């Protein structure tokens, strides 16, 4: 298997912070709103450089979503920042009516998504957000894989007219996507070309999938690895092209099995090309306190689970 060049280790939320800061310097219409989590979301640089375009809303997320929707009237491009839980579940109706249904150009930027938020526990570890957001008409859903990609995605969504849900996280993870790689919404990255099994992953699970592919390659199994950074609109062509070659698929995500990437991929397969699919995702369960890596192991979304799922998918081919 080819070696991936590693460009350091960072959290994806810092990629968001850097991307937002860059937007602040080059796009006069970009404004940012934050619900008392400026440091956690790494929005400090934007705030410092653009005090007039940064709006601290306090701990009032419903109001933040409404304010952002209103600011689009007059041409602003608002980026809202809070944890994924408070960016979605807490404000679902505000997003539904004032943003998605009203087709407002709001960028909902959600940090600390999934189990890797860690010690804060299940109250904060949302695992349903991708499902909620991809169910909304007009919504684009993006889950970038590493620091560099999160930065580029943050910048790219400013040029996309329409509501976007951008999901990222807290843990420090390897950076394996080249800096300044342009981010194209809806166009999946093929990271590895192989013939035995397709692995489709998003977010932190892309790195875990690279690790799994390495282990599989030592067993003589070649992996076609797709970084599905855009969950909606889904790159169906990339899925079908890969699966036609490999004949089986594993989806991997830091999300509930219900409603997530795996379910989106399954829809495409059922309607086009029936092949065995295995899901690496949290199975109808809340999380708990623990370190991010402990939690990924306990809840079955670690490297070993991707390896096992791949072997199972391959075995089911015949």
């Amino acid at each position, binding site marked *: 298997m080819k070696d991936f060049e590693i460009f350091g280790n960072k959290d994806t939320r810092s990629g968001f912070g850097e991307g937002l800061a860059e937007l602040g310097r080059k796009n006069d219409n970009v*404004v940012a709103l934050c619900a008392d989590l400026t440091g956690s979301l790494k929005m400090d640089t934007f705030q410092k450089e653009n005090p*007039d*375009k940064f*709006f601290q*809303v*306090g701990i*009032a997320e*419903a*109001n*933040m*979503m*409404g*304010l*952002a*929707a*209103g*600011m*689009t*009237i*007059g*041409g*602003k491009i*608002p980026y809202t920042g809070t944890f994924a839980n408070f960016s979605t579940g807490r404000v679902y*109706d*505000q997003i*539904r*009516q*004032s943003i998605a*249904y*009203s*087709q*407002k150009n709001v960028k909902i930027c959600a940090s600390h998504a999934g189990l890797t938020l860690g010690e804060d526990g299940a109250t904060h570890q949302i695992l349903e957000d991708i499902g909620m957001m991809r169910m909304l008409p007009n919504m684009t859903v993006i889950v970038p894989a590493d620091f560099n990609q999160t930065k580029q995605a943050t910048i790219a969504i400013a040029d996309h007219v329409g509501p976007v849900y951008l999901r990222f996280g807290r843990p420090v993870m390897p950076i394996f996507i080249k800096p300044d790689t342009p981010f194209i919404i809806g166009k999946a990255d093929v990271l590895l070309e192989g013939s035995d099994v397709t692995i489709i992953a998003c977010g932190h699970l892309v790195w875990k999938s690279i690790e799994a592919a390495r282990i599989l390659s030592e067993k003589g199994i070649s992996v076609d690895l797709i970084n599905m950074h855009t969950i909606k609109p889904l790159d169906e062509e990339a899925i079908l092209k890969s699966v036609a070659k490999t004949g089986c698929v594993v989806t991997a995500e830091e999300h509930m099995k219900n409603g997530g990437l795996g379910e989106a991929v399954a829809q495409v397969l059922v309607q086009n090309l029936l092949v065995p699919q295995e899901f690496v995702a949290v199975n109808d369960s809340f999380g708990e306190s623990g370190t991010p890596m402990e939690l990924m192991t306990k809840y079955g979304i670690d490297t070993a689970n991707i390896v096992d799922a791949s072997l199972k998918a391959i075995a089911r081919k015949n």
Partner: protein
Amino acid sequence: MHLGDKVQFIERIKLIIKVSFASISEVNKIQMEIEKLKHIASQVRRDIVRMVAAVNSGHPGGSLGCADFLTLLYFDILKHDPENFTMDGKDEDLFFLSNGHISPVWYSVLSRSGYFPVSDLATFRKLSSKLQGHPSTDKKLPGIRMASGSLGQGLSVGIGAAQAKKLNNDHSYVFTLHGDGELQEGQIWEAAMYAAAQKVDNIIAVIDFNGRQIDGDVDDVLSLGDLEGKWKAFGWMVLKMDGHNFLDMKNTITKAQSLCGEGKPVVIIMKTEMGMGVDYMMGTHKWHGSAPNTEQLELALNQLEETLGDY
């Protein structure tokens, strides 16, 4: 007497003096303008009851109660361009209806002021119509900038739009309208706290204070308590007006506009009568969300003069 009452009292005295010294022709002019607005409002009320009766659904009570206010707003107050509607509304005053269920009155006033053909009112709540049960933007009805219906969201939206205006050096106003029952939603108070803290002083929120909601009187369902005191405590300037007195409304809104730019948001508590103009719909919450049948419609139309021609 509260400070707000005192201010209003002084304003009224000033107005009386002003009117006293005005020439007879000016007084006549004001009277003529009010008569014209009353004329329009009568037609708007006919539109409302006909629209809801035609589809046997919709919300006539609050719509009738706000007919005078919205007629005044759209035909006299707003700086706007009905024939050339743009989403951004640059250098125009913006209006957001937060209590979206009173869409019939808004649709009527929008069409009568030139946003879209009056004949479109016949499509209200029908399949594929731009005039959805609750206002929406997805079918591109001119005049609508935000969907509403799920209550409590419009104040945040209005404040956001007001802040965007400030960033754009656009000195026009943002108006929002809310039901009094709607104030039970928590988001309203998140927004109220924010606007005062951030000194958003180019927004005028209007409360349709009719004292009724679906389940009964607001006082019985969930009392708002000292509403004026609540807004003051949240840092807003509070005015009051009679939602069926055009002169009072005109003066109060003018006053509200003059208070803008002083670092505080302004709210107007507007006393109205739900069902105003149709006798059997007044004095009850029964007509909040039910439509009149054929006989009841006839009865209502007999009380409302057809002034501009039915759609």
